């Protein structure tokens, strides 16, 4: 091999490398672009919803201008009368009650299921259970809605009959809570499984070496170490509960006053308020107010996520992140 040949090979290699570097640069830009697009999407959606939703409270809205204080503190939602009354206060309370009720019902079951799947179940059963949870998560919300309207309401009605409570055909806050609990179960479970499986084996072994039983280890070491992931699951699950519109609308009953405290009484959530009559409304106050409710919903979700972060810091002793 003479020098000339070596040089050409070197040149070829160089061009190969530079081409690769160049490709790398292009790919980097593409990734950057898609990340930017995703970020912009959030910006656009928020901008559109907020700019639309604050319109009714500005003086530029004319005669139909709404009072922000009456909107937030109101306990009556009557867009149908003249002049319309838009009070979202009781709807916020209803939404919090139904979603948190669902979380209270679903969270312990989800975490225990996740613990069983990740630590206790034999491998075969683990695979079966994991698949079932994944499939549950894949069921579309409208299917849950049909199920709720057909089955859960009947159940609630029967329970109401036992207690001598005159239910609205089973449409009730209780039905919404059960429905949401079922819907958020797979979300919390699958994230908890991932979190629990990721706990360092050495922590567990250390705990057992110190004399703790397997169960003590599971509850006091594994769960507390996985709390970050578990609470992320809770946050996502609550997000789904707050945001679920279709299925909830089918069993909520859309009460126009509130708040609803009796679980067998009908209720109204922020999402069902946005959805109710959406297909027949025309641009105007009734349409714009739906965006205002949307802003409130966004705020409620943000506030809840913040609360979950606070709770997370208080729960468990192990700081391992």
């Amino acid at each position, binding site marked *: 091999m003479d020098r000339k040949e070596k040089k050409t090979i070197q040149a070829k290699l160089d061009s190969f490398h530079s081409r690769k570097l160049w490709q790398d640069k292009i790919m980097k830009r593409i990734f950057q672009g898609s990340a930017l697009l995703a970020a912009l999407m959030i910006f656009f959606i928020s901008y559109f919803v907020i700019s639309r939703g604050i319109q009714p409270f500005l003086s530029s809205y004319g005669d139909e201008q709404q009072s922000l204080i009456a909107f937030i503190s109101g306990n*009556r939602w*009557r*867009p*149908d*009368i*003249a002049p319309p009354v838009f009070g979202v206060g009781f709807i916020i309370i209803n939404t919090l009650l139904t979603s948190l009720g669902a979380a209270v019902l679903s969270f312990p079951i989800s975490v225990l299921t996740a613990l069983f799947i990740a630590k206790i179940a034999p*491998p*075969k059963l683990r*695979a*079966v259970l994991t*698949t*079932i949870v994944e*499939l549950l998560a894949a069921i579309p919300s409208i299917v849950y809605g049909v199920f709720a*309207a057909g089955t859960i*309401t*009947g159940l609630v*009605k*029967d329970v109401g*009959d036992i207690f001598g409570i*005159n*239910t*609205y*055909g*089973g*449409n009730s806050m209780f039905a919404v809570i059960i429905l949401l609990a079922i819907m958020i179960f797979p979300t919390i479970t699958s994230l908890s499984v991932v979190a629990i499986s990721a706990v360092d084996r050495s922590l567990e072994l250390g705990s057992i070496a110190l004399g703790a039983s397997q169960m003590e280890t599971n509850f006091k070491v594994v769960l507390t170490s996985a709390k970050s992931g578990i609470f992320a699951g809770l946050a996502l699950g609550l997000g789904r509960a707050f945001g679920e519109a279709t299925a909830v*609308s089918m069993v909520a*009953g*859309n*009460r*126009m*006053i509130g708040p609803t405290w009796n679980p067998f009484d*009908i209720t109204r959530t922020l999402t069902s308020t946005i*959805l*109710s*009559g959406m297909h*027949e*409304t*025309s641009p105007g106050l*009734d349409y714009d107010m739906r965006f205002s409710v949307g802003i409130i919903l966004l705020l409620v979700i943000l506030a809840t996520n913040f609360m979950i972060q606070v709770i997370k810091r208080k729960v468990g002793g192990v700081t391992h992140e």
Partner: protein
Amino acid sequence: MKKTKIFVIMLLVAALFAGLVACSDKKTTKTEAPTTKATEAPATDAPATTAAPEPTEAPTEAPAAALTGAIHVYSRDASSGTRGAFEELVGFEGELTDDAIVTDSNGDMAAKVGADQYAIGYVSLTTDFAANNIKAVSYEGVEPTQENVLNETYTLARPFNYVTRAAGDFGNDKKEQLVKAFIAFLTESAEGANAISSAGGIVDAAGKKPWAELKADHPIVDEDNSGIELVTVGSTSVEKAIRAALETFQPMAGNFTFKMSHAGSGEGPAGTVGAEKDSAKKGDIGFTSRPFKDTEDVSQSMSNGTFCLDAVVICAQLDNPIENLNKDTVAAIFKGEVANWEDIK
């Protein structure tokens, strides 16, 4: 791992099919005896009344005293046309009780009332009552049937009227002929009646002729009318029916164009033969969802009349002993003044 996964999925699919088969079995038994669902919940010994709601007098009278408890008022959302008609005809506009449940659609209303023994609601006359486990309640002693609506004894109904501009006032002879043709299509043809009833209007199909027969009197429809724009004004309630009729008529009549600017019944006569007939609100055909008032002189129009009727039916669950309600009682119930079933006389 993967094999188990596939196995589980297959198992679930099998379970799903088993469930489907089981459910369809249930459904067939249900259609045979629609009351089975109702009997299992309140445990009343309701007789096996199947399709006919009131074949025997005695057993329906017996639970009449039995139904006590709060009335559950079901309503539609504010933008619903059925709700608009109902509130207007009963006369409690804007006074619906705060305790009402708001349903999403006619079907949603029917299904929810069918599942609630204490419910009262209202649906359109075209609803499938038996399938939803509901029954139609008579109003002022008159049963809501198509015949009773057409012979005007059932008063929870309203006429949909039309009025055209005066002859020679269309500004264009071709347009006048086209309007004439459309009115013939709307009121006399079977196709027009079909379009209207598909949009929820009630028309007497008897005596309607096929358009092919009527067409001979209106040669204008064979020309190219794409340059003509018909403007309709008036009631928003008629919009659906008129849109259906216009869209059916369009390809049959030389592809004319149309603009619908409906804002309320008052604008119908006003924009065609009344004070606003030369203003920006003018139209070629006006519509009202009520009879013409004495103050609305429609005598100079080229033609006017009723093209269909609109009826609302009060409904309750099949087991509910209620048979008849009067206007004042209905208003009181929906305003929330009468709150319990036992308070209804």
